[in-house]
C-alpha cells in the first residue's frame, strides 16, 4: 500500500515538473530583484537660483535594469527630486520628455517585501496637473538640509509596456552615506532597490 502511494505521488510530482518545462509558448520568467546605485539625475536652475528648473531627465528601464537615452523604451525618469513616469501627459516643465508609453503608478505605505500584489485601482498617470510620484522624501530643513527618502514609501509602477515593478528609494546622495549632510554631500544620486515582474499581466511579486 505504502509503496503504491509513494509511487503515485512521485509520478504526479514529475508530471508537474515536466509540465512547466514543456510550456514553450509562455515561459515563466524569474522575478528580478536589483539594487541600483548612484543613478545620477542632475538638474539646472531651481532652488532659489531664480531660473526655472531644466535639464534632461535620467531615464531608466526596468526590463534592461539600466539607464537609457531611448525616447520610448523607458519606464521612470529622474531629475533632482522630480520623478516622472512614461505615461499620461507632460506637466510641461522645460526639457521634460513626452510620454510615449502606458506607465502609471502610485505610492504605497509599506515595506518593499510587504507589497505582494499591485492594487491596479490606485494606478494613475502623470498629467498636466502634476506627477504621480510625489512625497517620496522628507526634507529636514536647517541645519543639515537633508533629503531623506521617507521610509515605508514604496513606488508601485506599471511600466511603459504594461508590466509591474515596485521600487524603494534608499538614498539621494552619492554612495549613500550613513549620515548625509545636504550642504556638503553630493546630491541627486539615486540609490534604489526594485523588484520587477517581467511576466505580462501578472500583478503579484
Amino acid at each position, binding site marked *: 500500500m505504502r509503496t503504491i502511494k509513494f509511487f503515485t505521488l512521485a509520478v504526479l510530482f514529475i508530471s508537474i515538473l515536466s509540465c512547466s518545462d514543456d510550456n514553450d509558448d509562455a515561459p515563466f520568467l524569474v522575478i528580478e530583484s536589483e539594487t541600483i546605485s548612484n543613478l545620477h539625475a542632475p538638474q539646472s536652475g531651481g532652488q532659489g537660483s531664480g531660473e526655472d528648473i531644466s535639464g534632461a531627465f535620467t531615464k531608466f528601464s526596468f526590463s534592461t535594469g539600466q539607464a537609457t537615452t531611448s525616447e520610448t523604451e523607458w519606464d521612470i525618469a529622474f531629475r533632482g527630486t522630480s520623478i516622472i513616469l512614461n505615461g499620461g501627459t507632460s506637466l510641461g516643465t522645460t526639457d521634460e520628455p513626452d510620454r510615449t508609453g502606458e506607465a502609471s503608478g502610485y505610492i504605497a505605505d509599506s515595506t518593499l*517585501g510587504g507589497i505582494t500584489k499591485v492594487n491596479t485601482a490606485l494606478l494613475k498617470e502623470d498629467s498636466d496637473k502634476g506627477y504621480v510620484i510625489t512625497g517620496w522624501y522628507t526634507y*529636514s530643513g536647517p541645519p543639515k538640509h537633508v533629503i531623506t527618502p521617507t521610509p*515605508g514609501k514604496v513606488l508601485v509602477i506599471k511600466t511603459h509596456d504594461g508590466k509591474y515593478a515596485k521600487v524603494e528609494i534608499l538614498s539621494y546622495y552619492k554612495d549613500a552615506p550613513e549620515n548625509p549632510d545636504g550642504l556638503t554631500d553630493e546630491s541627486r544620486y539615486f540609490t534604489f532597490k526594485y523588484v520587477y515582474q517581467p511576466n505580462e499581466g501578472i500583478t503579484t511579486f
Partner: protein
Amino acid sequence: MSLNKNNILIFFLFFFSCLLFSQEKNTIIQDSTKTEKLEDVIITATRTKRQLSSLPLPALLISKKEIHSINSLRLNDILNEQTGLITVPDFGGGEGIQLQGLDAQYTLILIDGVPLIGRSAGTLDISRITVGNIKQIEIVKGASSSLYGSDALGGVINIITENPKNGFNADLNSRSGSFGTYDNSMNLGYKKEKMSITSFINGFQSGGYDLNTEDELKTVEPYSNYTFNTKLDFNFNDKTNLFISGRYYTQNQDYVASENLKGESKINEWNTHLKLSHTYNKKWSSYFEFYATRYKANEFLNNPDNSRFSETDFNQLLIRPEARGIYIPSEKSTFIGGLGWNHETLIRTDFSSQPEFNSPYIYLQYDTNPNDKLNIILGARFDNHNKYKSQFSPKTALRYELSNKIAVKGSVGYGFKAPDFRQLYFDFSNAIVGYTVLGYNAVTTKLPEMEDEGQIANIIVPLSEFEDELNPENSVSINIGIDYTLYSNLKFNLNIFRNNIHDLIDTRVVANKINGQNVFSYYNVHKVYTQGVELNTLWKPATNIKISGGYQLLFAKDTAAEDAFKNGNVYARLTPSSSSFQLKEQDYFGLYNRSRHMANFKIFYTVEKWHLDANIRGTYRSKYGLYDTNGNSYLDTYDEFIKGYSIWDFAINKTFFKNYQLGLGIDNVLGFTDTQNISNISGRIFYGKLNINF
C-alpha cells in the same frame, strides 16, 4: 579674556585674604540670619496673599536668599535648576522656558503681576530679565487662564521685585566671569513712614562665545544690556496706597549673518505700572491698575560696502487698565473679581496691515475653607476678542488635609493662548526662494489679490475655510498631588499632571504658485498631550544643611502621531542601504526637545561662625531628540538622540564686616558642552562676586 581672568584672580585673592582675616573676629559678630522665617507667602496662585503650604495648586517659590547664594544673574540661570523646568534655546537666539513639557510660548511671564511682551517668534526670551532686584520668584504650574487670560497654558511665572526696608538702604553687586561676562547692579532704596522709593540699575555685558570655530559665525555674538527700574510706593493713609513703577530695558547685540553680512540688533522695552489700592473696611478692598508696555526690536544687516542689505522691525504695544475688587465676607472665604481691557498693537515688517487687538475681560474667583481641613477654589474668566474666538476659562482646585502630615490636592483648569499677530496677519514672500506665508486673517483678502496678479496656479484650500475665526490654542490641565511631611525637617511632595492641548496652530499649503512654490497659512490641527509625575524632596538634617532633590518623569506626545504608529503607518530604516521596516507603537518617542527624565539635586551648607555658605547643585536631563533624522518625520527610537547630560555648579560665599559679601563659583564645573546641538551651554564658567550693603 585675559582681563577677565585677572579680575577673577583679584576676587580670589581678596576672598581668601578676607576669609583669613575675618576668622579671628567671627565669634563676636551677632548672627543675623538665625531669625526664623515666617511662612512663605505666594500671591500669584490666587491674586491674594496665600500661604504656600496650604495652596491647592502646584506652586514653587524661589527666595532671594537662594538667588543670592547661587549667584544667579539672569532669570534663566535660576529657573533651570528647578524641578520640571528647563530653558531651551530658540532659533532666534533667546531662551524660553519649558514647563510640564509645554513649549516656551505657553508660559506667562509676569513682573509684579503684569505681563512681559515681545514674543517675536512665540518665545519670550527670559535671559532678558535680571535677578538683581528680585524679592522672590513665584511659579504656578497648570493652566491658569481663569485668572490671567491668554498664554497661561502651562503655568505662570511671576517675578516679585524687592521693596526697600526702613530708612536709606543701598546695595552694590558686581560679578565678573568667563566669556567676558560682567554684571553690575545697584539698588537704592528709601523708606520713611508713608513713602518708599527704590531705584535699580543693572548693566550686563557678555563677550559671547563660539562653540563651533570652523565657521565664520559665533554661537552667541557679544552683547550688552541695561535694566532701569524705579518704584514709588505712597500710603496716603492706612487705607489708600499708590504704587508706581517704571522699567526700561535696552540691549545691543552684534548681528552677523555671514562673512559679508554684518549688522546690529537692538531691543528697547519699557513698562509703566500704576496701582491704586484702597481698603474700605474689613470686608472690602479695591485696586485700580494701569499698565502699559512697549517692546521694540530692530535689526539690520549691511553689505561689505555698508549699503543696507536688510532691515526688520518689531514694535508691540500693550495697554491694560484693570479694576479688581476683593470681598471677604468671613474669615473662611475670599472673593476676588476683576474687570479689564487689553489693547494691543503691532507694527512689523512683512505684515498685511497694522493689526489692533481689543479684548475686554472679566473674572471672578471664590476661595473658601468650609472647614479647617478643606480648601476649595472656584474661578472663571471670560475674554472677549475682536479677532479670534472669545474664550471662557474655568478652574477649580481643592485641597484636603488627611492628617497633620498628609494633604491631598487637585486642580483642573483651562488655559489658552491667543493666536499671535504673525499667525493672523503675516504677509511674507521669500524673495529668494519665492514661497509666501499668509496669516489666517490675511488669506481671504490677499489670496484673491495674488490670483488677480496671476501668481496663483491653483487654490488647494477653499477660501471659505478661512471665514470662521481661528481658534486659540487651548488646553485642559489636571494636577493631582500629595504633600507629605514625614518630620518637620523632611518633606515630600508629589504631583501627577496631564495637559491636553487642542487646536495647536501649524502651517499648511493653501495654494500653489505658478513659480512652483507654495502659499502657506496657519490652521488649527494638532492635539498633543503632556503627562508625567513630579517629585520633590526637602531634607534639613541640621539647621545649617539643606538638601533637596527633584525629579520629573514626562511623556509628551502628539495624538495623531500615536495613531500613525498604532496603525502601522510609520517605517524606518537602519542604514541608507537597508530596506525599511514597520515601527511599533512603543517605538514612538514623542515630541521634540522633551526629555523623559529630568532631575536636580542641591546641597546648601552654612558655617555660621565663619559667615560662610556654600552649595553644590546638579541638574540632569535624559536623552532627547531635536529633529527627525531618519526621514519618517516622527521622532522614534531609531532616530539619533542628543545624549543625556548633567551640569554641576558650585558656589561659595563669605560675609565679612557684616555688610560685605564675596563670592566665588564655578558654573558647569565639568565643562559640559555639545557644540553641535546645544547652543545655550557655553562651557565652564569661573566667576567672582562682590556685594556691598549700605
